[in-house]
Structures are given as structure tokens and as C-alpha cells.
């Protein structure tokens, strides 16, 4: 069972990546989205004086960008194609492969977002190690929560509004924790002081992946 699952997941992830490289639609769209949003912020703020404002603005932009990036994952597949997956792969491998693919997407997105943000708004981070740890764990959390929510939202008709409504309250706890960690990274703090918060983020991620694994089969069967 397990090797079979790994095999299926590998192929589904590769399929998504290949599809992406061929169409270059999602990634380019999101990159443009991030750049233009940050540029708008740059023009309206011109310079961020308070590091805390920098922090909140960064995470809010990242949240919106990841919502629009991940929400495509189930919507773009037509009903007939989903039926095809259903006949060749197990539902667990479908959701896990989607989470892994979205994880890659959001990690690229968040690193890129940080790059542009640091370029235009100046880099105010003191402890980069902790910040990047938070960034990667955060992308993992965003990817897993948003993947599951987009699977739920794709079952409805007006899924773009619902995507935001359903996901924001669920992402909020994660977002608050992330902001707290990265606020700590703005001043010189040690790893030991942040280990608790990072562990919480890790715990939330694990719970989300576990729940998605358990619950997705009910969404999949129709």
C-alpha cells in the first residue's frame, strides 16, 4: 500500500509540475500579482519606517498571494478529468500530491515575495535564520490549509468568494503565530525563545495534513 501511494503521489506531483511548466499560467500570474501588489504598497507608503508595519504588510500580501495561488488547484481541473483521476489513483494520493505541489508553489512564492519586498521596502530582518524558518513553515501551513479549503470550495458554485470566507478564519491563528515569530526576527532573538512558536506552527501543519488525509475521501466521492 505505502510504496503504491508514494508512486502515485510522485506521478501526480510530476504531472502538476509538467502542466505548470507547459502553461506557465499560474506561476507567472502570481509573480505578477506579487510584484504589482508590492509596487502599489511601495508607491503608497514610499518608505516603511516602522519595522512592525513592514512585518504585517509582508504577511498580508503573502496570505493573499497564496490564497490566489492555491485556489486554482482544484478549480482548474474539469469534472471529467477529476473522474479520470478517481479511476486511476486513490483519493489520499490525490490530496497529498496536491499539498506537496502547492507547498512547492508557495515556498517559491514566499521566497520571491521576500526578495521583491526586501528590494523595494528594504530588508529590516535581523535574524534571517529564524525568519526563513518561519517563512518555510508558514508556506507549508498556508499550502496545506488552503489546499483542503480549495477542495471544499471547488464543490460549490461561487468558489472564489467562498475560498476567502472559508479560509481566512482558519488561516488566522497560523498567521498570528507567524507574525509573532517574524516580529521576533526583527530584533535579535535566539532560537530557544522562538522554538515554542515554531513548534506550534509545526503542530498546526501536522494536524492539517492529517485531517486532510482523513477527510478528503469524503469530498472526493460524489
Amino acid at each position: 500500500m505505502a510504496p503504491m501511494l508514494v508512486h502515485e503521489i510522485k506521478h501526480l506531483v510530476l504531472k502538476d509540475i509538467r502542466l505548470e511548466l507547459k502553461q506557465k499560467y499560474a506561476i507567472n500570474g502570481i509573480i505578477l500579482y506579487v510584484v504589482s501588489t508590492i509596487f502599489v504598497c511601495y508607491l503608497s507608503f514610499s518608505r516603511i519606517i516602522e519595522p512592525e508595519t513592514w512585518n504585517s504588510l509582508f504577511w498580508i500580501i503573502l496570505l493573499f498571494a497564496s490564497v490566489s495561488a492555491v485556489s486554482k488547484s482544484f478549480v482548474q481541473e474539469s469534472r471529467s478529468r477529476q473522474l479520470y483521476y478517481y479511476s486511476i489513483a486513490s483519493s489520499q494520493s490525490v490530496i497529498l500530491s496536491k499539498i506537496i505541489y502547492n507547498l512547492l508553489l508557495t515556498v517559491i512564492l514566499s521566497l520571491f515575495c521576500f526578495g521583491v519586498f526586501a528590494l523595494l521596502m528594504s530588508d529590516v530582518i535581523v535574524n534571517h535564520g529564524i525568519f526563513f524558518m518561519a517563512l518555510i513553515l508558514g508556506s507549508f501551513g498556508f499550502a496545506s490549509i488552503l489546499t483542503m479549503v480549495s477542495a471544499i470550495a471547488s464543490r460549490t458554485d461561487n468558489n472564489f468568494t467562498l475560498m476567502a470566507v472559508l479560509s481566512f478564519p482558519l488561516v488566522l491563528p497560523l498567521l498570528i503565530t507567524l507574525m509573532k515569530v517574524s516580529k521576533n526576527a526583527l530584533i535579535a532573538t535566539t532560537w530557544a525563545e522562538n522554538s515554542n512558536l515554531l513548534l506550534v506552527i509545526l503542530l498546526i501543519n501536522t494536524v492539517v495534513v492529517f485531517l486532510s488525509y482523513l477527510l478528503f475521501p469524503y469530498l472526493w466521492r460524489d
Partner: protein
Amino acid sequence: MVLILFSLVAGLLIPVPDLPIIHQSIRNLFFHVGMWFAMLVIFTISFIYSIRYLSGFKTDNDIVAQEASKVGVFFGILGIATGMIWAKFTWGSWWVNDPKLNGAAVSLLVYFAYLVLRNSLNEEQKRAKVSAVYNIFAYVLLIVFIGILPRLAQGSIHPGDVNNPLTVKTMDNHLRLVFYPAIIGWILLAVWILNLRIKICKIEHKMNTL
């Protein structure tokens, strides 16, 4: 009902210990805390019935989950309203940025989202299934959030915290005498309302299917 009446009357009449800042507003304890306990119990019922729905696909279980979330939201709003009044008189503002208050706000948002999700689906089977999945997903995340975050954040000014001296232990016997019946009373009231609503909903459902 008797317990609620008791808590209303006794809650307003008994002598209370004169604690700093809180003073007489401690009487709100019997209402505010009771409502939150009732809300949590009702949301837990909703969660359990969503799981039961997914394991058997019986419409009755879905009705219970739906009605429980509505009653829970109702008690949540009451809890927030009483809490806000309390906060205005003790902390000086209607709302403060505190992990517990944020947790409360997030849980209400989640259940509003749940109700919106229900309304957006027309097909009965699909609606029941999708919303049950969301309910379970959201409830577990909420419990993780409410359980862990306030403990990590230092300096919650909301009572009932590890760092905050005002816990159940500091209540005197008069308070406890009313506090425990009050909580049980609110929970029972909530369950009673829930039962009525479930019966109405089941009758409506039967009339629709006829």
C-alpha cells in the same frame, strides 16, 4: 430553567467579594462564562454529529450538526455581547487585542463561514457531506488554536489564565455556589433550545419530502 432562574436571581443578589478593578461587575461571571461554556458544548455536539454523519450518511445527523452550529453562534454572540459590556467597565474599552478575545472572534467567524457554505450548496446530500467535512476540519483547528495560543502569548489580561491570579481557585464559596449551577443551567438551556430546533427542523424536513 430553574437553574437559570436561580443564577439570575442569586447572581444579582448574593454578596460578592470586592476584588480590585472588577468590583460588583463580578456578577457578570454567571452569565458571560456560562454562555461560553454553553457555546463550546453546543459546538462540540455539532462536531460529533458531523462525524456521525460522515460515518453513516443519515440526514438526521446532519440536521443536528446544522442546528447545533446555529444555536452555538447565537450563544457565542450573547457571550461576546456580555463580554464586551464587562470589558467596557473593567478594561475601559469594548474590545482589546487579547488572545482569548481573538479566539472567540475567530470561532464565530468560522461558524459563520460554515453557515454561508451550507447556504451556497443546493443539493442536499452534497451540502451535508461538504459542510460536515468543513465542520470537522474547522473544529479541530479551533481547539488547537484556543488550547495552545493563549498559553504561549504572555500577558493575557483575560481572567482564567495561568499568569492571571483571577481563576476559579480565587472564587469564594458564595460565588461558587452560584457559578456551577449557572454554568450547568446555561448548558441545559442551550441543549433545550437545540432540541426544540432539531424537532422543528425534522418536521419541516418530513413535510418537504412528502
